[in-house]
């Protein structure tokens, strides 16, 4: 029992040090700007189709699924605002973050893990390139900044999907649909949801990098690192989401 606990605490301590190192490295001057842009492209732009399709389907399905209940209460006209509220507040951030956890965290974990296993990271260190700066900082920063933008895309596409879903049974003009969505939206719906996506992105990037950076042993550990990265990142997204919602609820 004690060795197990000790191991867990060691893991937590190592992870905390990893995060601490990230904040230390990010303020120190040589910044790998080109690598950062490349990672942004890989994380953000390349994930866009996936996120858009998911967001669209979520909006569409949510509208169609909510309609019977709303009709029962005679509140069919509230459907656009209800769907957009739940999309923007909760569903789009979480679903997008989970998709990104699957795509980005596993990618980073596998990439860094294989580099670690094949001693490329050691080689970098030898050739006077800070591997942490070059590999980890750029990726975490890119994930932190790109996931929120992906969530915004998912919001827009998801609300549009809701419009399509509404028009499956009823008819509503695009302008009226969006004005109804905007009318019931508040900054309190948009801003906390946007802020928490930065944390989602940060944890996706950090966990992916940590798992990859700490892979050890043979090639089997690469797969292990990728798998562990996805699981841990997904779990951390839900935990962060819960904390964020509670904190938002506390203050507003």
């Amino acid at each position, binding site marked *: 029992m004690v060795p197990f606990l000790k191991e867990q605490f060691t893991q937590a301590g190592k992870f905390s040090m990893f995060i601490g190192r990230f904040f230390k490295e990010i303020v120190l001057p040589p910044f790998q700007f080109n690598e950062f842009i490349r990672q942004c492209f890989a994380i953000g732009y390349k994930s866009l189709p996936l996120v858009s399709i998911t967001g669209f389907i979520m909006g569409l399905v949510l509208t169609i699924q909510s309609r019977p209940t709303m009709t029962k209460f005679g509140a069919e006209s509230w459907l656009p605002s209800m769907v957009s509220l739940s999309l923007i507040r909760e569903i789009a951030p979480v679903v997008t973050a989970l998709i990104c956890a699957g795509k980005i965290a596993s990618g980073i974990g596998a990439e860094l893990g294989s580099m670690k296993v094949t001693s490329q990271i050691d080689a970098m260190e030898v050739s006077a390139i800070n591997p942490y700066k070059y590999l980890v900082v750029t990726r975490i920063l890119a994930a932190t900044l790109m996931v929120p933008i992906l969530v915004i895309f998912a*919001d827009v596409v998801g609300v549009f999907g809701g419009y399509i879903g509404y028009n499956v049974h009823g008819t509503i003009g695009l302008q009226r649909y969006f004005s109804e969505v905007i009318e019931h939206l508040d900054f309190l719906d*948009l801003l906390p949801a946007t802020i928490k996506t930065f944390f989602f992105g940060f944890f996706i990037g950090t966990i992916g990098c940590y798992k990859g950076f700490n892979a050890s042993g043979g090639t089997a550990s690469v797969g292990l690192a990728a798998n562990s990265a996805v699981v841990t990142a997904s779990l951390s997204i839900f935990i962060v989401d819960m904390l964020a919602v509670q904190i938002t609820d506390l203050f507003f």
Partner: protein
Amino acid sequence: MKKKADYIWKLGMFVIIGLAAFLVAVYFIGKSQNLFGSTFHLQAQFKNVSGLKTGNNVELSGINIGTIKDIAFVSDSAVVVNMVIRSEIQHYIKADAFASIGTDGLMGDKVLTISPGSNSDQIVKDHAMIRSNEAVGLEDLMAGLKKSVDNAEVITKQLSEFSFKINNGKGVLSKVLTDEHFADNIDQTLLNLKTTSDGFVLFSKNMNDKNGTISKLMTDPYYANSIKKMLSGFETSASDINVFTAKLNQGKGILPKLISDEKLANSFDSTMTNLQSGSKKLLEIEEAAKHNFLLKGFFKKQKKAEAKQKKKLEQSDKVK
């Protein structure tokens, strides 16, 4: 480097579109809450805002013109609502406009409605306090309803008591409604009334008959004349009697004296006394005569005859 330029514009496009979407959303949300554009402020004081919240809409003629900015207490029974309204609406709101709190739909959000006043030409000023109409809260409605329900309860209770008494009591009404005998009586009464009225009809018919006495009395001028004559005759005799009694009262004949003279009455009285004493003396004389031998036989005869008469009467009684 060529490869870098290939993807960098895609990344830029991705980021810019994402940020633009975010900014557009922020702008529209802000616009719907009147955070942008020129606005002016109005205030209204309420006793009870019944759930109005910051951010609720302000309506004029059913059009959304602004939002509630804040709600603050000014005393224990007064709340000031501060609202932000679009500037271009300002000249439609006059100084005597008043604010009231309603509900958007049956279950929707609270809405502050500004209603135009009657006859002011003055445009409302920025930060002005406008009048307010207290909202009819659900509690007031319920209180009113409760009162009428209570009243209805009392009324129905009394009504039920009343009808119970009617059904089971022994009063007149109960008898009227339930007693068969009474009904029969009424029936009989009505029947009697009917025959009476029939008789009356006949009677009046007879009365109207031209040859009847009453009809003649009513209509024949001859009768009227004779009645008139009779009445005048009565009158004259009455006046004669009047004269006669006056003479009686004042006259000096025997009759008036007899009626009114005290002296005469006294002398009459004494005469009567004298007469009384006279007759007494006469009885004494008669008694004396009975004992007189000369007259003894006469009296005896008389006694015998009396006894005989008596016997005869007794015998006839027995025969009967």
